[in-house]
């Protein structure tokens, strides 16, 4: 099967990859670029475990083709921490016990970061609706919502 050559930026690094036309961005990230932090929970855009940002916009990477990444800037969980320093959301997820199995966590963190970029001071309800595209089966969401609100508070310097 003929493969397509694609150039993109992933977590700030210029990358080139070959992919089959039907391969999704998620397939490319995981299988071609070996960035396995982004998870596949459903492959149909229903669970949010594969959330990444593409040119700053929150996306399910399973709903986008690898070839569509041409020229785009993609950010994944692997690029969320700044060296030693975890992102405040990452830190608050740990402190609030907002994760259990950890499969939804990368997508949840990417979605939460995107939410706080759009709305730095969300209410509890806004957090719940903002993360409604990300399924978590372990936590019951209680501690995730607490962690996001606490991270937002810290990031606002409140």
């Amino acid at each position, binding site marked *: 099967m003929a493969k397509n050559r694609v150039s993109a930026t992933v977590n700030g690094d210029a990358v080139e990859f070959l992919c089959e036309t039907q391969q999704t961005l998620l397939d490319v990230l995981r299988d071609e670029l070996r960035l396995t932090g982004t*998870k596949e929970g459903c492959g149909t855009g229903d669970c949010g475990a594969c959330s990444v940002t593409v040119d700053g916009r929150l996306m399910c990477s399973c709903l986008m083709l690898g070839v569509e990444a041409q020229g785009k800037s993609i950010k994944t969980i692997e690029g969320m921490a700044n060296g030693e320093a975890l992102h405040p959301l990452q830190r608050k997820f740990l402190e609030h016990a907002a994760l259990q199995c950890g499969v*939804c966590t990368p997508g949840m963190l990417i979605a939460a970061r995107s939410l706080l970029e759009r709305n730095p001071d969300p209410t509890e309800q806004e957090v719940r609706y903002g993360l409604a595209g990300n399924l978590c*089966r372990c936590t019951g969401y209680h501690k995730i919502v607490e962690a996001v609100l606490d991270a937002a508070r810290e990031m606002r310097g409140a």
Partner: protein
Amino acid sequence: MSTMVKYEEKPLKIVGTRPIRPDGVDKVTGRARFAADYSLPGQLIGKVLRSPHAHARIKSVDTTAAQSLPGVKAVVTRDDFADMPSEFAAAGELTINFRDVTRNMMAREKVLYDGHPVAAVAAISESIAREALKLIKVEYEVLPHVIDVVEAMKPDAPLLHEEQFTDGVTPKPDKPSNIAKRLVFARGDLEAGFKQADIVVEREFNTKPVHQGYIEPQACLASASEDGQVELWTGTQGHFVFRAQCAKVLQMDVGKLRVVPTELGGGFGGKNNIYTEPLAIALSRKSHRPVKMVMTREEVFRATGPTSGANVKVKIGCTKDGRIIAAEAELNFQAGAFAGSSVGMACPCTFTRYDIDNVKVVGHDVTVNRPKVAAYRAPGAPIIVFGVESVIDELAKTLGIDPIEFRLKNAAKEGTQTYYGPKLGPIGYIETLNKAKAHPHYSAPLGLNQGRGIATGFWFNIGMETSSRLNVNEDGTVTLIMGTVDVAGGSRASMAMMVAEELGIAYDRVRPVIGDTTTLGFNFITAGSRGTFAGGMAAVLSARQAIERLRQRVAQIREVALEDVLWKDGSAVPAPGSAKQFTPMSLVEIARMAGKTGGSISGQSEINAQGAGPGFCTHIVDVEVDKQTGAVKILRYTIVQDVGKAIHPAYVEGQMQGAAVQGIGWSLNEEYFYGADGVLQNPGFLDYRVPVASDVPYIDTVIVEVPNPNHPYGVRGCGEVSIIPPIAAISNAINNAMGVRLRSQPMSPPVVLKALGEAAGGKSKG
């Protein structure tokens, strides 16, 4: 050794605090490796061809065209696996029969459900593997199927297994049946009991199968070598049990199979059994290449085990002052394609929250053309408790007694004789009821179309085989190797905390890891809320053995008797009152000298943990019903649960909250839809709707600690019991709000709307 370690009350420094889990940073940075994240050089991708029929005889399977497709390296069918005789083994929930295990992983004579595997291929890419599946020709003779449990129990129902005769019936039946087993639990004189009762309520309830809904689909990677050695990486709740099952169905030596448990992306009972693992190994053997198999979400829904759907009948009689005299229940549970539902667990859970003299519970395990059910968090109990706690609510309401008061009048306590076996030991049921009653939630005002419901749960919890090892490293840090998979609850943190407490060192000086099957003796699956109970007991015993050896070493070094050496706060110190004084040695100092004084120091334990303490809980829920749409909104939710001892309270709360929200999904949204053709119509998260963040409120938790006398820190296990009450609690709350009584699950908007309409037409009563 069957082991019971007694509880000792002592001042605690680490147990009961909230440190960060050792697997945490890897999970927030994407570094944690789940099964689908593993790859090997030269690996192939394996895919499964699945039955499109609910029930059909397989006349032929022709793989010639698939095998000749370029890039296809191996194909396996039923011909590649040996048949297995009937033989039972424990696998987390009930027992499994290897005759069925081998037929469930790859159909033999018949396909028994939509999604049943009929062949598997391994190819150099996923796209070629998928192409190859299309080239496999399977000739089916389609047979009539049966999906519903009540239908399947009828004598003229389509029969799944011609050789299945109902077990537990005397005389032995001479005609085969879909009823695999009949169970009867009884105590006292039921008829006399009901005669004494002033009021008797009898109701029937129906529930649909629901899936565990773990976000990580099953995945594995197998590598077989030419000398018969096999390595398997897989997401499992119990790698030793997976090793046993794979070795059995593949007829290989257990010692030749090494199973490495990867980080587990949720299980909830659904990852107790093998699915693609033996297929991947067989494909790897045939192709001489590593084979990776990852299920799609559709495959997870079509072919892995949900819990049973069921039909249950409950009859309870009580006196005017609210004392339950007699109780009877019939539980008809779907087992799926093969016998072995959770009905055997559900029967003893039916009434075991109450002290009742006259009880009879009859259970039926019924095969139907659906995927073989698997365990799901307190398997079976939520289904029957929905019925029982609804009837209790109705009785309390009829008598005008407060529902918590009614339960207190009948509550089980230490010494209560159960109808399934033993008397109960020290338990905290009454404590949960009293704390719930005193909670501000219970007396908070309610608005229009709002209602409050309560319900309670009981779960046994278990011990079982467990091994662990503790190595004191040369700098005094400690490596703790456990064989009980951390199924996400944070048991690695809890084990490290208990070990640090025992050794008297800091939590972050202990690194807990889950060892593969070559590192430790056998470990049973992490199920039955046993992880922190049994795993913790093994870890504590390993630490105590290491302490004993550390003391021995110090006695040798300091030239004193062993009894002169006491272990205190991470150091060997002179025992009080001992004649022989010596300079204390810290763990670090001993560890540094260990190599030159006889070698490194470790502790280990191999136990069969006994004495698990039952868990009880009481839930309070407020709902608001939308009269226009029938939608039920959860406004407020409070859980009061006895956990024995919360080693890490935040992770215990997480178990309680997670269980309750799974129960909320079960109550309001989740169900399987099958077409008339027996094909599953909603195999995806879009149409099988699990709760999202905006569906639920904060879940308030109250931890009750009535110590389990048979655990060094009093642990009971906390993972399961809180999934039991939600369905009943929510149904009771809907009744409190609107006066309608719903007796089927899910209580989805169309169902609620219909019930409200009927009530308005005067057809329903509460």
